[in-house]
């Protein structure tokens, strides 16, 4: 079992990583960031910098009849679709390319980019923007699942508003249901969530060495390169992207930077001057992607012994006006739809719909939190219905090594859930407290179990990404590390250095790892999907082994390592059958709450977490991930309300969209168990998203137990609790 390991002076100076990789070291970026010295994109200086601001749609769905513009003074530009060079496309190359760089002829969501206004003086840019008048002809907008499925106002996407539809099936659901003696049903809903990274979105696009170069706060420099090259219709190598220090991302800087980068690149291509686009906070909250809202209906049949014999799940996610990564988010939601349970007969139908809301996109967990909230609450509701303790009912259905998963593959992991449950019992006194709070109208405790597949779904790492890393021996006994995954606050700069230095038997401070520049580093894939440590870290480890062998060739010795999918994992993408993930992180959370009977405010009095992330690369970094992930998730579950009014987000400031402070939740008591994974660096598995997944259902269940009413929806606001108690 892991424990808190105190930072010692020796560790801070840098330790050789040969021995125990989990021993914490000083994070390489800690001093600079804590001291305020780090330069973020808004701090960069450029000669002759132009400032851009978007002309945005004020309508959710409308035809653009006319755009009335004032005269633009010399040096000020109105950039729109007509400025895209011949050979280019008014499309942003994400997974699909349906998202337009500039709205043209019609608008499909509030905030959609119509044009880019830019020039040297911000005030003049703003004045010009304010003088532009867009004449719309309103169409009937569609916002809800109901609207989308009934194609209200006509389809926004295709003929049926369905971005993606999947069906997963194991066993024989139709034949199993009639054998059930009891059926339990529920519909579970989750809301939008704003990332609220500390640093807002920002990119500066420049013209350097006859080349468009973008400095970006981003998770995926190569994504930006791809989208910009696609829009301009130029070879990938004609575009250069340099990652700027990134002050938080959480998925919000995965695809969304493309929406800023492409119009900027169109402008720079035309005017050959640097242009900056740095979002203000209100702009960032109002006009960036959110987590996909979900509505998941579950129907479960039980036999006489309270075993689940069949389960049928219908999953809906709201993708907003453009597809972006929505189908993959939906895949995660359904592949994680059965949670950590072995269900013999199960069917999951998933659909992602188009609406006239701001396009939803990646957010830590990527669909899994929606699916896991639903299944965890449902399991708890079944337990309630049959009068069995939740922990007992869930444990009875735990998936075991070798069991069949929803994608008809064997669970390869060594599943340690029973031991993890025992550990959290010991830490939190869970079962005792359940009994104690049974008749207490104000106190409650909740328990949840989750797993999270590491890396891209299926064979995506092989078929789509094909990650490459490089290393090189440098002067002074140092080694250069060349990867495209980025530091965004999660500690990757430190973790990858530790992994490399362990193999090379160097001090981790002697690994040189700069923010990626697409002209220098190979494409090791994006920084997402809990893959950076597990997948890229493994490539780094293997690459370092190769460099170690060549080390004596002297300065300049190089090594490269390319991803190969382990042969034992098979996957068929067309049917989503096979090993969805090579390994999973596993987690158990307990949350304890107390209700204020006068205000219905919930005070969280205890939070415990036990995680299996294989092996921690750095105990302190992982403690940080656990605290941060759990608290971010508790915000999602409690106070982070994000509502639409006529297609616009109502909560647009940090006063109205509130995320937790240190007073809102207590310390997260975290323990890591050891369970090394053979294709992870030193045995590490994906962890970054796992730590988000478990807290929402644990919180909702705790509140449910306190108030004695079932909860089907997050965030569980005091307003909702009041209504439930009426």
């Amino acid at each position, binding site marked *: 079992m892991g424990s808190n390991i105190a930072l010692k002076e020796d560790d801070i100076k840098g330790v050789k990583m040969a021995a125990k990789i989990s021993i914490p070291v000083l994070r390489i970026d800690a001093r600079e960031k804590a001291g305020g010295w780090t330069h973020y994109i808004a701090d960069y200086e450029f000669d002759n910098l132009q400032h851009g601001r978007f002309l945005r749609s004020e309508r959710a769905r409308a035809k653009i009849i006319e755009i009335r513009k004032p005269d633009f003074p010399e040096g000020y530009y109105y950039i729109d679709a007509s400025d895209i060079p011949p050979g280019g496309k008014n499309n942003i190359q994400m997974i699909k390319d349906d998202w337009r760089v500039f709205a043209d002829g019609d608008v499909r969501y509030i905030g959609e980019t119509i044009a880019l206004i830019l020039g040297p003086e911000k005030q003049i840019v703003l004045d010009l923007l304010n003088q532009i008048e867009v004449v719309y002809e309103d169409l009937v907008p569609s916002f809800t699942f109901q609207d989308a499925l009934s194609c209200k106002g006509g389809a926004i996407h295709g003929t049926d508003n369905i971005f993606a539809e999947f069906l997963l099936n194991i066993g024989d659901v139709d034949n199993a249901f009639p054998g059930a003696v009891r059926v339990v049903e529920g519909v579970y809903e989750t809301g939008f969530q704003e990332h609220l990274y500390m640093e807002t979105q920002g990119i500066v696009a420049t013209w350097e060495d006859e080349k468009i170069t973008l400095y970006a706060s981003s998770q995926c420099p190569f994504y930006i390169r791809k989208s910009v090259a696609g829009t301009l219709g130029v070879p990938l190598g004609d575009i250069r992207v340099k990652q700027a220090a990134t002050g938080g991302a959480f998925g919000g800087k995965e695809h969304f930077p493309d929406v800023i980068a492409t119009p900027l690149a169109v402008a720079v291509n035309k005017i050959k001057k640097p242009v900056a686009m740095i979002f*203000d906070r209100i702009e960032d909250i109002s006009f960036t992607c959110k987590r996909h809202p979900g509505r998941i209906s579950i129907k479960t049949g039980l036999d006489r012994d309270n075993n689940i014999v069949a389960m049928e799940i219908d999953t809906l996610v709201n993708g907003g006006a453009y597809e972006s990564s929505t189908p993959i988010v939906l895949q995660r939601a359904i592949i994680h739809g059965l949670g950590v349970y072995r269900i013999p007969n199960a069917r999951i139908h998933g659909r992602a719909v188009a609406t006239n809301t701001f396009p939803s996109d990646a957010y830590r967990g990527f669909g899994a939190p929606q699916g896991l909230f639903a299944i965890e609450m449902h399991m708890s509701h079944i337990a309630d219905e049959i009068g069995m303790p939740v922990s007992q009912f869930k444990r009875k259905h735990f998936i075991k090594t070798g069991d069949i998963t929803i994608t008809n593959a064997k669970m390869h992991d060594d599943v340690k859930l029973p031991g993890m449950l025992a550990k959290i019992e010991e830490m939190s006194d869970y079962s005792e407290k359940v009994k104690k709070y049974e008749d207490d109208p104000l106190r409650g405790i909740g328990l949840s179990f989750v797993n999270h597949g590491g890396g891209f779904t299926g064979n995506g790492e092989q078929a789509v990404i094909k990650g490459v890393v490089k290393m090189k021996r440098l002067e002074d006994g140092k080694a250069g590390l060349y990867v495209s995954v980025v530091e965004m606050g999660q500690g990757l700069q430190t973790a990858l250095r530790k992994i490399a230095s362990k193999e090379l038997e160097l001090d981790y401070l002697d690994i040189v790892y700069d923010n990626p520049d697409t002209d220098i580093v190979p494409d090791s894939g994006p920084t997402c999907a809990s893959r950076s440590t597990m997948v890229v870290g493994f490539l780094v480890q293997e690459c370092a082994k190769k460099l170690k062998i060549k080390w004596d060739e002297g300065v300049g010795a190089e090594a490269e390592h390319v991803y190969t999918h382990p042969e034992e994992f098979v996957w068929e993408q067309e049917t989503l059958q096979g090993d969805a993930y090579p390994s999973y992180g596993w987690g158990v959370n307990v949350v304890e709450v107390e209700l204020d009977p006068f*205000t219905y405010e919930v005070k969280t009095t205890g939070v415990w977490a036990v995680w299996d992330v294989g092996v921690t690369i750095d105990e302190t970094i992982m403690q940080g991930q656990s605290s941060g992930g759990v608290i971010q998730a508790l915000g999602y579950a409690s106070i982070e309300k994000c509502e639409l009014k006529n297609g616009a987000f109502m909560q647009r400031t940090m006063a*109205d969209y509130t995320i937790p402070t240190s007073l809102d939740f207590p310390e997260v008591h975290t323990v890591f168990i050891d369970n090394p994974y053979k294709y992870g660096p030193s045995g590490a598995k994906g962890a970054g998203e796992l730590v988000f997944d478990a807290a929402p259902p644990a919180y909702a269940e705790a509140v449910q137990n306190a108030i004695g009413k079932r909860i089907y929806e997050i965030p569980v606001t005091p307003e909702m609790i009041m209504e439930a108690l009426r």
Partner: protein
Amino acid sequence: MVDSYRPKDLKDALRIRGEYGSTPLAGGTDLMVRYQSWAGTLPLFTNSVMFVGHLHELKYIKKIENSLEVGGTATLSMVADHPDTPRVLRDAVLSIAAPALRNNATLTGNICNASPAGDSVCALYALDALIRLEKNGSSRELPVVEFITGPGRTLLGKDELVTAITIPLKNSSIDNFTKVGTRRANALSKLSFTGIADYKNGRIDSIALTFGAVGPTVVRSVELEKKLLGLSRAELKAGKESILSDYSTVIVPIDDQRSTAVYRKKVALNLLDKFINEVADYE
């Protein structure tokens, strides 16, 4: 770009205010937010601005006989730190934002902003605070309930400045300030409540009940309070339902991005209910 002034003293400030009607800016924590524009451009002031936060003559807080006098530029931190600050006001002020903001923001600013969700205002209504308004050559004093006329609206004359807030200090045995915010710290109010009461010879001798963020201004009904004066503990207890139903007619909140009308009303009445119980049970 608008003109801005930095007067050297109060006299100078009153002169400038009289001559140009410039908008006073103290801590700027409301004004700079209200007029914010694109980072790197000037705020969207349309009127000239006069800085007042530095005026030393008004940066004080002191007890004078049976009152606490808060100078027109005293910060929220000064109010929170003074030993004679009534507890409900201290609690209200400490519920505002975070220490760094409280070190800069003024009590005057919170009042003049005239938001129904202004946390100190809820307490000041219950404390019968008086607002001193000065102009070149004269001054007047108004009860805070009269001074504030609507959301963002006050009786501040174009040539006047707030130079002091006077809070009568009474001995109140029972008092409570509760803020229900969007989270536990650095949050704006969904609603707030202040209750102050005292007995004399077993009968209610004074009572004040105010509610924030449940109407266009802080809600206080002196009429309904009068009905409670003179009640014994038993009578108060027996009359609770009718008191609550009286108050349910004056508490008329709205739905907005922070909460719902139903919740605001229900919780306001719950807090009143709780306070009445406290008063009735007071030994």
